[in-house]
């Protein structure tokens, strides 16, 4: 890590710790939702941006994580933390299964297959209402019995940091190198000795497990889980967040998700216009700035800062 990165990380950590005391309960809630989306969008980026598997069914794993925790808690009275853990495991296992199923697919075929998987799951949740609560939703018990969202805030902050840093470490390791090699050229990766099958499934399992974690937190936080978590509009929002942030930099995606969620709320009075704006934002970003808006923007600011710093050190006044 370079000096500006360390400085920025410290600044962000301080800001994140102090955040609940700087805003009112409403914006704290928005921040929590934004961080849940950040985890989902970052895990989608790992799968799509780094491993090259454009899944449009990623929100299905959020639903799997959430409904596993919720149903276990409601029907079998399993403690929530245990249920959330089970949700992560279930999402990762089913994700590995889906990854194995689409081993021979790529590009639009994989996108269609995963989209179909997600829709089938959503329809099943809607239909099997005795277990899932159907379209009316599933009432999930609370995780904390506190007056404020403070415990939820610090928990999701910890989960966000752990999952994103964890994924960044994976991506910086040889696994990440293999993910990208497979994305670039599956045949060449195999010729280079990369176990393509294993690493494709692994990427799916990791991304799905992390999405399951987000779902497992979301369910008790919101208290009511509806099949809409797996809807294609949700998927669209996640994709927009990742694309705006810059799909190949996880911190950029996290910033993108939180920024988009705050914009969603700030524009609440515009009602339905919000999703239109995000569709438009996604279109314009793809059309004119494919590397995203936030990550390249940050790089530019950092370049400028480094340049200014050098000038200061040299003490020249040119």
């Amino acid at each position, binding site marked *: 890590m370079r000096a500006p990165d360390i400085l920025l990380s410290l600044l962000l950590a301080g800001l994140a710790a102090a955040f609940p005391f700087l805003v009112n309960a409403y914006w704290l809630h928005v921040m929590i939702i934004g961080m849940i989306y950040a985890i989902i969008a970052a895990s989608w980026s790992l799968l799509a941006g780094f491993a090259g598997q454009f899944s449009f069914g990623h929100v299905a794993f959020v639903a799997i994580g959430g409904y596993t925790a919720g149903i276990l808690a409601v029907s079998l009275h399993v403690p929530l933390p245990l249920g959330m853990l089970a949700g992560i495991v279930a999402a990762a296992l089913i994700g590995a299964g889906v990854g194995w*199923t689409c081993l021979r697919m790529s*590009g639009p075929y994989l996108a269609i297959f995963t989209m*179909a998987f997600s*829709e089938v799951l959503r*329809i099943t949740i809607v239909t099997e209402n005795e277990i899932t609560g159907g379209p009316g939703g599933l009432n999930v018990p609370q995780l904390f019995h506190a007056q404020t969202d403070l415990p939820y805030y610090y928990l999701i902050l910890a989960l966000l940091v752990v999952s994103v840093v964890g994924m960044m470490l994976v991506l910086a390791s040889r696994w990440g190198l293999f993910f990208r090699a497979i994305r670039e050229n599956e045949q060449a990766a195999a010729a280079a000795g990369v176990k393509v099958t294993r690493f494709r499934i692994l990427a799916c399992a990791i991304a799905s497990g992390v999405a399951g974690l987000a779902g497992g937190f979301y369910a008790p936080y919101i208290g009511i889980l509806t099949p809409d978590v797996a809807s294609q509009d949700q998927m669209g929002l996640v*994709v927009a967040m990742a694309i705006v942030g810059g799909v190949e930099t996880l911190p950029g995606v996290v910033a993108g998700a939180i920024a988009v969620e705050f914009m969603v709320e700030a524009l609440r009075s515009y009602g*339905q216009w919000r999703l239109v704006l995000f*569709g438009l934002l996604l279109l314009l970003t*793809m059309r004119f700035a494919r590397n995203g808006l936030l990550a390249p923007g940050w790089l530019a600011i950092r370049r400028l800062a480094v340049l200014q710093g050098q000038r200061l050190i040299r003490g020249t006044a040119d």
Partner: protein
Amino acid sequence: MLDYFLIQSANGIVIGVIYALIATGLTIIFALLKIVNFAHGELYMMGGYFGYYVITLAGVPPLPAVVAAMAISFAFAVAIERGLLTPLYSPGMERKSDYGILITFGLAVFLRNIAIIIFGPFPLRPPSFFDGDLVLGGLIISYDRLVAAGGGLLILVLLIFFLNRTVWGQALNAVSQSRESASIVGINSERMYMFAFGLGGALAGGAGALVAPIYSLSPSMGLVPDTQAFVIVILGGLGSVSGSIIAGILLGLSENLFIAFLPDPNRGPSYANAFGLFIMMLVLLFRPTGIFGRHHAAME
């Protein structure tokens, strides 16, 4: 019981023709632009609304309104193609397949939600083509369904004639087979891409206008046909218009019979959409790149 079977079969064929219309458009777009249009169901939805407003605002009778809806959909699709898809044709463009997936997916989200604002979230139903039902013994079918199926078949027949017998149709075919050779014989391939996307939009829009009196219009009506169209394209083989027609009718038929014979009557209609998706997942499993595998290998 037999009557019920007959009615469900007839309904299946009607919706199958509509599916076929949507799917042939998707096929033509893929054959030319080499992208899967994830916003195809939304073009179908827009076509339905175009038809509705031509009838209610301009006072055009329902049948000519279908033709008008197709014309407007054509122009609408061309505008989309000009605005968003031209980067696909520049030789320096990287990861074209990814771009095609994401840009059309974003478009789908955008159109679905802007439709809620412009047209409202509540279902709209344009006037019937003809009121009443046709009764043939035990078979009862509304005239609207007959018109939808008949109109759809007519459009498909005209399309096949157009593709095989006209200069433009053959130019489309030439570009889909080889862009380079087509340009050698003087075909402007970029104009063909534009035309193909417009044509695909017109077919989807026509389908939307035809079903409007039967199923009503809603902003999210494109979601299901969107995925159904992929099933059909994969089953029928890409680039094969006749394959799409047959596969479309088969899917419509089997979906309706599935509803009719599922032992649990409450779950039947709910799982009907899942049924088509499930078939598609199976097809993709056994033919992972669809029937059009070789085309895909050449992509990017």
